[in-house]
């Protein structure tokens, strides 16, 4: 079931002018960025310093942008590429885990060690607890239906006590 405005949204010239690539990915004419990031090799090891990891990351991002352009122009097909053992996405995941040791994900930068069970302002631990997931219809027409995963106690703010 699709809302009527959602069905037509992907043909809306104003949506197309602002979000052309997104619309193409929805229609499977282009490739979602995360799949491209999995095709970009990243040369690092698990014991590399965080600084080294960021350097490798920056280089891999440049390579990813080039690959995205080649894919978008049809010069390369994603099916012809072989995923590397360690990709840009693996590196991002590792960097994300490193950040959790002294969390600076949000601009509050509270530097709690979430891997050791410390909780910061957001009170989110190491694991993501899922409270619900469903095909969400209550967003802008160009983005619904949307497979939505809610974290614990979905809220945009509010202390429980």
């Amino acid at each position, binding site marked *: 079931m*699709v809302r009527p405005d959602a069905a037509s949204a992907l043909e809306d010239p*104003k949506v197309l*002018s*602002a*979000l*052309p690539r*997104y619309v193409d*990915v*929805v229609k499977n004419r282009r*490739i*979602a*960025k*995360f*799949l*491209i*990031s*999995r095709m970009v090799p990243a040369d690092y090891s698990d014991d590399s310093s965080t600084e080294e990891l960021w350097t490798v*990351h920056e280089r891999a*991002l440049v390579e*990813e942008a080039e690959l995205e352009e080649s894919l978008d122009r049809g010069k390369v097909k994603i099916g012809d590429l072989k995923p590397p053992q360690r990709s840009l*996405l*693996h590196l*991002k*995941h590792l*960097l*994300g885990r490193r950040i*959790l040791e002294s969390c*600076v*994900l*949000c*601009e*509050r*930068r509270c530097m709690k060690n979430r891997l050791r069970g410390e909780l*910061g302002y*957001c009170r*989110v631990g190491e*694991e*993501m*607890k*899922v*409270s619900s997931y469903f*095909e969400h219809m209550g*967003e*802008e027409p*160009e*983005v619904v*239906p*949307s*497979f*939505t*995963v*809610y*974290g*614990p*106690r*979905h*809220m*945009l*703010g*509010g202390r429980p006590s």
Partner: protein
Amino acid sequence: MGCNFRCIHCQNWSISQQFEEGSVIPQKELALLIDIARRDGCRNQNWVGGDPIPQIPFWLGILLYEKENTPVFFNTNGHYSREASELLRGVVDLYKIDFKYGSDRCAERISDAPRYWETVTRNLRSAKRYGELLIRVLVLPGHLDCCLYCILKFISEELGKGTRVNLMDQYTPHWRAGEAPELSKRLTPSEWRRAVAMAEDAGLTNVTM
């Protein structure tokens, strides 16, 4: 609770109470659910928290297992660090940022958010540069001159007049909204008319309401 803001008017405050527990679903399993939903006609995977910022590493782990071509839709208040922005770069296809305040004072008072303007405008610029961007603006009563004016001006001048903006009139006082006198009531029709006129004056051409 999963949010880096404490908006006194949080509309999801009551919903949040029904889902207090939450359970840990393995990343592989979530990846499979997302793949199935995509084959079923879902357009994207929508990262929601609270705010998804604290969950970014977990989501990156899910993406390692997904097989379908499902665009990543990052639905956020925009108050993330430079490091988080780098992690999102090259992974997020569509950013939706709630642009809430034009002044740091209002952001601190209502959402307890430090360095709001500098942070959110930095992330809006980088979202536009590295992905595609949808901006949501919930017009807050009494915040047209201090907030809405600056928000619309920034979008128009820095991000482009064709930026897609969803201007929303449905502000409703929830939770502790009564603590701020101007937020204890809904937007008046004349405030809304003025908000619409401000968007026109800013020259924005891709506004939905």
